[in-house]
């Protein structure tokens, strides 16, 4: 595995399942990492998604990476090299926040909004960070692990209440 030019020293490469390289980027060098990969031929940002590791804090992270509750996972695709890479960045615990990739890949606009909507992870520099799927006045972020699954209350029974 060769390191692309301009890759920040704090970024650690690991081997993922299926031969995909998984980079663990330091939050401060997150955009620089993506920039280095973009310059290396990863023309398309396929996906941005978030994960809330509240109930699974001891998952695998590369050595030296401080695991936080929230993580943002970026999937990049190279059309010229027929390759995928994944970048994982630790977004923080209480007020998760990472930089936006909008200036590098404009197509991340909607996915980043979705991550914000579902997890409350803030993206610095995003042009229009608003809810995208939930109503505007919704409280809470549904895909967080401490956000309950809705239930329909059962009548005539000592059933659990809604949420």
């Amino acid at each position, binding site marked *: 595995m060769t390191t692309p030019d301009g890759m920040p020293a704090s970024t650690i490469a690991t081997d*993922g*399942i*299926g031969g*995909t390289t998984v980079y663990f980027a330091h939050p401060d060098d997150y955009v620089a990492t993506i920039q280095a990969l973009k310059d290396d031929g990863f*023309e*398309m*940002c*396929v*996906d941005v*998604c978030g*994960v*809330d590791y509240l*109930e*699974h804090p001891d*998952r*695998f992270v590369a050595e030296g990476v401080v695991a936080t509750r929230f993580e943002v*996972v970026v*999937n990049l*695709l190279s*059309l010229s090299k*027929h390759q*995928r890479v*994944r970048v994982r960045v630790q977004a923080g615990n209480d007020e998760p926040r990472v930089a936006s990739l*909008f200036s590098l*890949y*404009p*197509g*991340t*606009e*909607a*996915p980043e909004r*979705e991550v914000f909507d*579902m997890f409350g992870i803030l993206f610095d520099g995003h*042009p*229009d960070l*608003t*809810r*995208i*799927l*939930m*109503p*505007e*006045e919704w409280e809470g972020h*549904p*895909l967080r692990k401490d956000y309950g*699954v*809705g239930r329909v209350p059962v009548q005539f029974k000592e059933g659990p209440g809604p949420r």
Partner: protein
Amino acid sequence: MTDQIRNVDRLDILAAETHEGAQELRPRSETAADDLGKEMGAVLRLQGLNLDPASIDVEGPEDERMIINMGPSHPSTHGVLRLMLELDGEYVLRTKPVIGYLHTGMEKTAETLSYVQGGTNVTRMDYLSPIGNETVFALAVESLLGISVPERATWIRMMMNELNRISSHLVWMATNGMDLGSSSMMIYGLRERELILAFYEKTAGLRMNLNYVRPGGVAADLPDGWEDDIAALCDTIHQRTYEYDELLTGQPIFRQRMIGVAPITAEEALALGLTGPLLRSTGVAWDLRRSMPYLAYDQVEFDVIVGTYGDNFDRYAIRLNEIRESVRIIRQCLEKMPSGDYRTQDAKVTPPPRARIGESMEALIHHFKLFTEGFHVPAGETYVGIESPRGEIGCYLVSDGGPKPYRMHTRAPSFTNLQAIPLLMRGGTMSDTVTVISTVDPVMGEVDR
């Protein structure tokens, strides 16, 4: 309460009823200059955010512009897509898609279902391409499990995926025809799709939302006499594509509304992360079946259909020809279908045959464990992407070692492709919005999940 709402002096109460917050398109006088630039369409976002909106805009006084709302329940928005359009007469200046009307929290639901049950959930996302959703989920689970499926299962999956591509494209042809006033195409498209749904029903028991492709293989072997069914189906559909060709391609009204309308360049498509026919229409020969083969696509012959101009007509032509290519793949599947098992014999993943349960204690235990607790998947994370009829559908799966996914995220092609709409519509006419939505082909079940 009713009196309050009826009171015209209190319009704010009325507005609160349909409030979408920042997703709403505001009048220009209430929009900051850089926001306006962004709303003009993604192409401006590409060129930088500092663009002066006044310098590129169609000139005209504010009171001649009109913001109208289209959808969410509009027959040509293909579901519950809502568009806010700023119009200058007949011309569209700005567009803002508003989504979320079909949001049902399927990614959250996936965390409460075991891997055995998960298929029933994902199959409902892109309801026109259920097999694609199931396949990507099953491949992701299998990649975490580190198991391989028998060759026959792979070929059955591939054949079903291609049938699915045909049925999805047929619905597209039908609805697109309807949008352009060709109700004959609507009837023909749905008629031919019925042949495929009938085959689904024969194989899996259901016409839609099959839960047929499961981790470890497929739910059932192909029915007796499937070769004849498939051969007849291929012949019929292949011949009918030429009828559609005759019906639509040369028709003057159809051509006028498709050719040169809503073009997009390869650079814009890549920057926006567009995949599928939308990307291929710009001349980028990117099809995951060919470029990063999965299943057994490296063992069949087919052509990747590529357009030139990136306009509506190219997207139509690509879909029409992809039906023919899919028929070609299915015929090869018919020829090369290997014999053997249709699911892995790993008892931890595959339920035992019904007959074994009565005579074997192990089979009974495995059956009980599989359908109550489910199987455990080693901790890890993986991403698998395959080519759905709409583009790259991906599944990002995180396991914590338990029987349920810790996190299941679907990269929905329609969701990303929808970002092209402001760009495609800009400067077009109001009537073109209908064809643009149609050729982008969003499935709202997948957009909102």
